[in-house]
C-alpha cells in the first residue's frame, strides 16, 4: 500500500473482512488434534465416537497419515448391508478433499462453497492429519481476526480522528488528508508532490508553491523518519494554505532543541540517506507565516499557515 491514500475512513468493513480472509491461516481456525479412528478399527467404534461427540464425519488415520474419511452415510450403509464388526477401511472413502494448514482461509471458504461437505480434514506438509475445520470454525476465526483489526484501527482513529471541526473553516476550498507510514522511504515525498500538483492546477504563484513544498516536504519526511506514522492534512483556503501533521508518537522531548538549527536525532543510516541535517523544522518555520508545534509522548502535532498573494509575506 502506497502512502498517498486519501484517508477514507478505515472502518471500511469490506477491507477488514478481505484482509482477514487472506491473512488468517487454516491452522489458526481449525480444531487441532481431532478425534479419529484407524483403518483396522471396527465400524462400531467409529459409530460410538461420532455419536458421543456429535460428529458427522471422522478422519481415518493410518500411523500419522490421513487414510480416508468416514461419514454418517458410510455408517448407514454399514447398518443396511454389513456388520458393525466390519473394519472401517471397508467403508471409508479414500478420495478425501483436504486443506493444508498453511493455506489462507480464503481457500477453505472456497471449498465450503464448492463441495457439499460440512468439514474438511487439514494436513501439514508431511501429509499428516493435524486438524479438522468446519464452517463454524471459519466464522469464529474470522470474527476474532476482524475484532483484532478493528481494535487496531480504533486506536489509530482515536489519534488520527475525524477532522477537528475547528480545523475546517467554512470557506475551505480543498481539504485533503494523507496517511504517512513510518520508514516508508519508498514513497517519501509523494504527498508533497500531490500537494504541489493541486496548487499548480489552481494557478497558485510559483513562489508560494515553493514555500508550501518546503514545509510539506519537511513535515512529511519527519513523519517518515522520526514518527511512528501519522497523517498530513492539507487545506487550501481563499487567502491561505494550512498544513497540519499529527502522528502516533513517540513525541519530541525537548521542543526548543528540536527547533534549533542543526539539532537532529537521526541515526547514522538515515544521515547517509541525506536526511538528518537538523534543518527541517527551522526551514518549515522560516517559510511559514504562522507556525505551531506541540508534542507529548502520545504524539506530535505541527500546524502551519502560509498566506497567499501578499508579496511582503514572501520575504524570508
Amino acid at each position: 500500500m502506497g502512502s498517498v491514500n486519501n484517508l477514507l475512513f478505515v472502518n471500511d468493513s469490506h477491507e477488514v473482512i478481505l484482509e482477514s480472509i487472506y491473512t488468517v491461516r487454516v491452522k489458526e481456525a481449525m480444531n487441532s488434534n481431532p478425534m479419529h479412528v484407524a483403518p483396522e478399527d471396527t465400524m462400531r467404534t467409529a459409530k460410538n465416537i461420532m455419536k458421543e461427540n456429535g460428529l458427522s464425519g471422522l478422519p481415518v488415520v493410518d500411523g500419522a497419515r490421513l487414510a480416508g474419511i468416514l461419514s454418517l452415510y458410510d455408517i448407514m450403509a454399514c447398518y443396511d448391508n454389513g456388520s458393525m464388526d466390519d473394519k472401517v477401511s471397508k467403508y471409508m472413502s479414500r478420495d478425501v478433499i483436504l486443506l493444508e494448514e498453511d493455506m489462507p482461509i480464503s481457500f477453505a471458504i472456497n471449498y465450503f462453497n464448492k463441495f457439499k461437505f460440512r468439514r474438511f480434514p487439514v494436513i501439514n506438509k508431511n501429509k499428516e492429519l493435524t486438524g479438522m475445520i468446519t464452517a463454524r470454525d471459519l466464522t469464529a476465526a474470522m470474527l476474532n481476526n476482524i475484532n483484532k483489526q478493528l481494535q487496531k484501527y480504533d486506536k489509530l482513529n482515536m489519534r488520527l480522528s475525524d477532522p477537528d471541526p475547528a480545523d475546517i473553516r467554512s470557506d475551505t476550498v480543498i481539504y485533503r488528508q494523507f496517511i504517512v507510514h513510518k520508514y516508508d522511504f519508498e514513497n517519501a515525498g509523494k504527498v508533497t508532490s500531490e500537494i504541489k500538483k493541486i496548487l499548480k492546477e489552481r494557478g497558485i504563484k510559483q513562489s508560494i508553491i515553493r514555500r508550501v513544498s518546503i514545509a510539506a516536504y519537511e513535515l512529511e519526511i519527519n513523519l517518515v523518519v522520526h514518527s511512528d506514522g501519522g497523517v498530513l492534512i492539507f487545506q487550501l483556503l481563499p487567502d491561505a494554505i494550512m498544513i497540519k501533521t499529527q502522528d502516533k508518537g513517540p513525541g519530541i522531548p525537548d521542543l526548543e532543541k528540536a527547533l534549533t538549527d542543526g539539532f537532529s536525532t537521526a541515526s547514522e543510516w538515515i544521515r547517509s540517506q541525506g536526511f538528518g541535517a537538523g534543518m527541517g523544522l527551522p526551514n518549515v518555520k522560516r517559510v511559514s507565516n504562522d507556525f505551531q508545534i506541540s508534542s507529548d509522548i502520545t504524539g506530535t502535532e505541527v500546524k502551519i499557515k502560509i498566506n497567499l498573494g501578499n508579496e511582503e509575506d514572501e520575504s524570508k
Partner: protein
Amino acid sequence: MKVSDLEALGYTRETKKEMEDYEIKAGYTGDLLSDVMANAPSDSVLITIQAHKNTIAVATLAGIRAILVCNKRAIPSDMIEAAEDNDVALFKTAETQFEASAKVAKMMG
C-alpha cells in the same frame, strides 16, 4: 547553458529516456536534502554525492532539471528509474564536487 551541455563537459548521462533539453540557469552543490530543498534555485543543476532515490524526490519538488553525481558514486537503478519518471536528467562523473562545480560555474559564465 542547456542540460545537454553537461555531456559536452564530459559527464556520463545515466538516464536514457528522451527528455526536453531544458535551459539551466543556476547550480547548487550540496548533500543535505533539507538544505537542497530550502536553497537550490529552480531550473538548476544539483551537484551532489547523494546517489539515491530520495534525491530525485527533492529535485522534482525544487524544480531541479539535472543532477550530477560526483566521486564515481554508484547509482542504483531505482534512482535512474525515478529520474526518468520525473524528467530529471541524471549524470555521473569521477570528479569531486569542487571540480565539477568549478567547471559548471565557468560554463554558465
